[in-house]
């Protein structure tokens, strides 16, 4: 076995030096009756050549998004990643290191993480960023817990237009704690309606959580929400599932947000069938010490040279145990570093141009869909790269038509938004060509004609 260097000869000599005759003697503390008598029921070992061939075959049963026109988004976004980012992120010095417990020999990861923290604060307009959470959904749940801790009251109000899996994760995380989640509806523009909040006693509300762009593809009016919440002294949590939008939309931190968190996958990570992704978490200075997760800080060595260390660790579980701000330990460090590499490679202008291109493609898609009779676009709020459309007949039948034409359509909204009817959330990014969009529109028109007979 190429991964286990031990030779028979060495094994014998090592056992001898331990004064035992077999490996079994080293297992004598495990009750004999419990020890396995036969081999595990697992498939037999494969040579590397066979393994590589076999895995390629499995991969061939999947359809990568870039092999056919794809309009799927809803929390996972298809963006082009420059080769230099992949090359740097694959360097084994970053890949095969552990958590930087020994800073003197982990300065590479630590400095890259400090740079990541800085870039996230630049992108969100916030003051402090942690070194990553598991994913956007978990970061959102942690934000709710932070709001409850900071405000010492139990109610958190969440926009109806929060990604439904985020909502489920939030409910799971808070299910056994003294936390109440209530929902805020959306208005005809597809934006969150704060009205129900105004009839409640603001003192009992810890925070309000708004996703922007939201699950319906609509950009929320964060400035106005931020102003209202500030007056009511309610914490404002902005959830971002499409981090690319931050490059062009007004920074939530400049709209009065107290916590900006969400999913950073768009910043250089492949869609990876859902993970690993990058939960990002940024806060104001006031909330810094209540923030969950690791954070890297600047310091100096005994010679006065600049260096970096994990700091603020007294909030963490290994010191605070059951009083920790969170139980998170392993995070998504490599994903965070990869996103810093992506932001560095793209630069200020690259990020902005790609973000603008996403907006433009979405506007083009919208303009094309408006020409198809029978299709309705229910919300007229501003969009980034996603758009809700309602079809005149069953979405299942349309998905079948798309499949026949080798197209992956959008996200099925019927489960979480039954009142919209046959609704679908379409996503276009810089990876979608004009031709893709035109073809989609043609398939859609033909399908409508067909179903209308």
């Amino acid at each position, binding site marked *: 076995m190429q991964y286990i260097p031990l030779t028979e000869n060495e094994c014998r000599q090592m056992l001898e030096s331990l004064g035992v005759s077999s490996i079994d003697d080293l297992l004598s503390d495990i009750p004999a009756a419990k020890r396995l008598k036969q081999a595990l029921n697992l498939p037999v070992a494969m040579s590397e050549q066979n393994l590589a061939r076999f895995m390629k075959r499995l991969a061939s049963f999947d359809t990568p998004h870039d092999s056919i026109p794809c309009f799927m988004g809803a929390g996972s976004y298809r963006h082009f990643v420059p080769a230099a980012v992949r090359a740097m992120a694959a360097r084994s010095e970053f890949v095969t290191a552990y958590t930087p417990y020994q800073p003197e020999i982990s300065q590479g990861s630590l400095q890259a993480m400090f740079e990541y923290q800085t870039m996230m604060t630049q992108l969100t307009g916030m003051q402090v960023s942690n070194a990553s959470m598991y994913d956007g959904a978990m970061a959102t749940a942690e934000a709710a817990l932070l709001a409850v801790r900071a405000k010492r009251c139990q109610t958190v109000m969440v926009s109806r237009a929060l990604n439904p899996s985020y909502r489920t994760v939030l409910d799971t995380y808070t299910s056994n704690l003294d936390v109440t989640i209530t929902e805020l509806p959306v208005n005809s523009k597809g934006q969150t309606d704060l009205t129900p909040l105004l009839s409640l006693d603001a003192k009992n509300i810890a925070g309000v959580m708004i996703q922007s762009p939201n699950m319906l593809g609509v950009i929320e009016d964060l400035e106005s929400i931020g102003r209202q919440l500030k007056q009511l002294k309610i914490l404002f949590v902005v959830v971002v599932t499409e981090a690319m939008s931050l490059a062009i939309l007004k920074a939530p931190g400049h709209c009065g947000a107290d916590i900006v968190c969400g999913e950073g996958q768009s910043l250089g990570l492949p869609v990876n069938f859902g993970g690993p992704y990058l939960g990002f978490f940024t806060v104001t200075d006031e909330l810094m*010490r209540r923030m969950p997760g690791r954070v890297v800080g600047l310091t100096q060595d005994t010679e006065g040279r600049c260096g970096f260390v994990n700091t603020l*660790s*007294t*909030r963490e579980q290994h*010191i605070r145990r059951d*009083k920790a701000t969170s139980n998170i330990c392993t995070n998504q460090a490599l994903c965070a570093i990869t996103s810093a590499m992506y932001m560095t490679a793209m630069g200020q202008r690259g990020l902005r141009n790609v973000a603008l291109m996403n907006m433009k493609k979405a506007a083009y898609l919208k303009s094309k869909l408006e020409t198809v009779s029978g299709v309705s676009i229910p919300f007229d709020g501003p969009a980034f790269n996603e758009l809700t459309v309602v079809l005149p007949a069953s979405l299942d039948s349309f998905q079948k038509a798309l499949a026949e034409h080798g197209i992956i359509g959008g996200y099925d909204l019927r489960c979480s938004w039954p009142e919209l009817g046959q609704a679908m959330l379409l996503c276009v990014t810089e990876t979608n060509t004009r031709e893709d969009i035109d073809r989609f529109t043609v398939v859609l028109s033909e399908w409508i004609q067909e179903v209308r007979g």
Partner: protein
Amino acid sequence: MSLPDDYRFTRDHEWVSVDGDIATIGITAHAAEQLGDVVFVELPSVGTSFEKGDVFSVVESVKAAVDCYMPVSGEVTEINETLESAYEIMNEDPQGQGWIVRIRMTDTTEIDQLMTAKAYADYLSTVE
């Protein structure tokens, strides 16, 4: 280490010095030494009321964080703001300039339940 005779002490290594109904509270030199370099102290707000035994502050070093429990009940009248810019005084002079809060006691007889300097010294010898 010296333990001022007029101070009272708790098993959680806090000290109390009394002036009328005002009590000044901090952590003992023993506690400060065990903690190592203090890097942060979470202070309560003036006007907050605490029952005896409530957590009123958290003192953090690089390696540990300890909750401070109210030795006696009362309302915070003053917090040691100097700490916020110079946590090192917590290590340099924990039983003097490194005090944490002053409170107006609601029941001054609670003081009598605390350890004297001698009792605390004996207690320390059992802990070590």
